[in-house]
């Protein structure tokens, strides 16, 4: 901490020599001027400049103002000395200004100033914020979404260019960002890891070891803070899990799970992508992945996860890869997925789907185009590695696009912003698919296919003071009473309770409207953004709540209340 506060001292130390030079030059000049004999006065004695006049003269001469010879004309001896003074002071000032500009353009100093400014703006944050380490594609998606949801963000990124991009993005709130290595604990601390308003840490760099370092720092310095870490290798994930990182996101594994769910329970899968979509986007309705023989092009990190997922679903699978198999029992074609030969050999005419998941976007597209030529009815899943290629992938219109950065972003947002969503999704996967189908039909009819707002509310004194007091006074409030439009109570509020969690009771999924609410209940809601604001109003404002629940306006002020209760008696 200390080394960032000393920018001021750094400047002073660097300017020590020029300042001493300036003082010396001024002192020598002034001293010389007082000693140089001037023109004689009436008695013929030479006049001398006093210190006062000498300093006055030097001050305006050295700063190039130049009023002339004041208070009276100089003698030639004095002029000789003044010539020397002028050249000395010009050199002194030139040297000082040169040092100042060199210092200002010094990279170390600029970095120190930027760090100090960053640390100050983080320290002054007085609302919940998320610390995002790594502003790549994933980082940008998440920052966009968090900003849209009204959270503050602090960004650490190694690449100066990407930090520059943050200023070009039009975020609603100011985003403090620093070019620094996030794996340095000191930097993390500056970025607010131990700040009382820090709501979570996201380690999203494309370097597994840096993410691991962030995870360790978060675990040790801020153990209660939720931390989300991206890991693309199994070893890193295992390492993170070993010291209690709560959320480890492997985009490949996650997508394989989604695919498994899509094959297994299409409605549950649709509900999941609808609930966890990026805010402001609309879910496109795809056909469900069919069951039957599949072809997998590329058996790398991602391919292995997909193969395992398809095996669990007992889907026959043929693999095309350049390298021979290593202890794998699937039918294996050694060759290039981009060529028609290998695809025909793998039985593309009888297959129902192709997954192109090599680490090269061009290869993936090429394989997909060839496969669709050979068999137009194929269900095609494409892996898109680079966000910049999205125009090509959009033009191809695959059935499913797997973009690692988006998978991570969805997962992070779901975990961070609504902790209750994860238990709900787990439950959803256990329920029969018919239940999910009915639910998704009901919800999308009411709210449309645009990604809805999903949020949770806890009924306590801090989050919902009005409702909490009402419940404490012994009134009973049901879900149906609460979810009413505060402008017209006959209209229902455009949101639905998905999950009600009670400390001492079983979780209630889709609780009916006549369920009584209790203090310290936690609710998971889905609905429109406007409904979220209105519900917040109901939970916080006594008068609004009273109107919504009872249909009568509550009187404001002690005198009115007293008066009305007397007259009602």
């Amino acid at each position, binding site marked *: 901490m200390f080394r960032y506060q*000393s920018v001021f*001292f*750094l400047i*002073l*130390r*660097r*300017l*020590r020599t020029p*300042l*001493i030079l300036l*003082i*010396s030059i001024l*002192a020598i000049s*002034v*001293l010389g001027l*007082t000693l140089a004999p001037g023109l004689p006065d009436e008695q013929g004695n030479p006049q001398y400049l*006093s*210190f*006062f*006049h000498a300093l006055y003269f030097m001050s305006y001469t050295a700063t190039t103002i130049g009023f002339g010879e004041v208070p009276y004309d100089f003698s030639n001896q004095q002029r000789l000395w003044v010539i020397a003074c002028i050249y000395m002071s010009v050199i002194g000032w030139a040297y000082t200004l040169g040092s100042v500009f060199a210092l200002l353009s010094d990279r170390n100093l600029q970095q120190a100033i930027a760090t100090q400014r960053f640390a100050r703006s983080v320290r002054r944050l007085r609302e919940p914020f998320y610390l995002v380490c790594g502003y790549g594609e994933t980082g940008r998606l998440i920052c966009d979404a968090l900003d849209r949801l009204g959270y503050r963000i602090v960004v650490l990124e190694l690449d100066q260019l990407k930090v520059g991009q943050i200023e070009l993005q039009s975020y609603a709130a100011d985003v403090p960002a620093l070019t620094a290595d996030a794996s340095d604990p000191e930097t993390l601390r500056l970025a607010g890891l131990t700040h009382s308003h820090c709501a979570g840490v996201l380690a999203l760099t494309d370097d597994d070891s840096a993410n691991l370092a962030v995870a360790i720092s978060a675990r040790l310095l801020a153990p209660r803070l939720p931390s989300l870490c991206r890991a693309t290798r199994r070893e890193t994930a295992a390492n993170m899990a070993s010291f209690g990182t709560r959320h480890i996101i492997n985009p490949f594994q996650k997508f394989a799970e989604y695919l498994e769910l899509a094959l297994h329970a299409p409605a549950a899968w649709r509900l999941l992508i609808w609930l966890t979509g990026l805010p402001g986007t609309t879910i496109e309705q795809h056909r469900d992945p069919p069951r039957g023989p599949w072809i997998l092009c590329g058996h790398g990190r991602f391919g292995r996860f997909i193969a395992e997922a398809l095996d669990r679903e007992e889907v026959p699978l043929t693999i095309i890869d350049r390298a021979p198999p290593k202890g794998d029992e699937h039918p294996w074609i050694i060759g290039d997925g981009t060529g028609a030969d290998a695809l025909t050999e793998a039985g593309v005419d009888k297959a129902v789907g192709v997954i192109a998941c090599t680490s090269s976007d061009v290869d993936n597209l090429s394989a997909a185009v060839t496969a669709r030529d050979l068999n137009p009815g194929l269900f095609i899943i494409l892996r898109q590695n680079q966000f910049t290629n999205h125009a090509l992938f959009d033009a191809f219109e695959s059935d499913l696009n797997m973009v690692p950065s988006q998978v991570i972003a969805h997962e992070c947002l779901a975990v961070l912003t609504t902790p209750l969503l994860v238990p709900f999704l787990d439950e959803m996967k256990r329920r029969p698919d018919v239940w999910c189908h009915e639910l998704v039909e009901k919800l999308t009819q009411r709210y449309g296919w645009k990604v809805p707002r999903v949020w949770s509310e806890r009924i306590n004194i801090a989050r919902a003071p009005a409702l909490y007091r009402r419940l404490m006074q012994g009134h009973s409030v049901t879900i149906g009473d609460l979810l009413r439009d505060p402008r017209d109570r006959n209209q229902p509020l455009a949101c639905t309770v998905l999950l009600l969690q009670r400390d001492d009771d079983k979780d209630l999924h889709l609780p009916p409207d006549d369920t009584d609410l209790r203090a310290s209940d936690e609710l998971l809601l889905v609905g429109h953004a406007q409904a979220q604001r209105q519900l917040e109003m109901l939970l916080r404002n006594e008068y609004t709540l009273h109107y919504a629940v009872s249909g009568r306006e509550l009187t404001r002020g002690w005198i009115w209340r007293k008066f009305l209760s007397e007259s009602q008696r």
Partner: protein
Amino acid sequence: MNLEKVLFGFFILLAATLNFGFVIGEIDNPAHHDIYELFAALVVSLIATVLKFGDRTQIGAVQLSTSLVADLQLIAAAMVWGYAVHVSDGGLTPHMTASVVSLAAGALLANVVSVIFLIAETLMQRR
């Protein structure tokens, strides 16, 4: 032996000695207080201040503050002198001389403290 340390000690001590030389004598007698000495004391004190810039230790910070006090006092003394000689009608009266010298005496106290710190730091380091 370290040139930086030599210069540092030299300037601090010189600031104190020049200051002392100016202050010593009858307080209201202009003949006892040479203006060149005040000038030298002020310049040396300013240089000593700049030399202390950028020291991040605790004792360095206190050193800097004592130096700033000395500068302030000496500048005030110089201003009173300038006012007396060039602006006021009476010139350098005993009253004015006493003001100049007492301000410089205050600076002397700060310089003495500075020297004490210098000695303390030297003894502390034992190198």
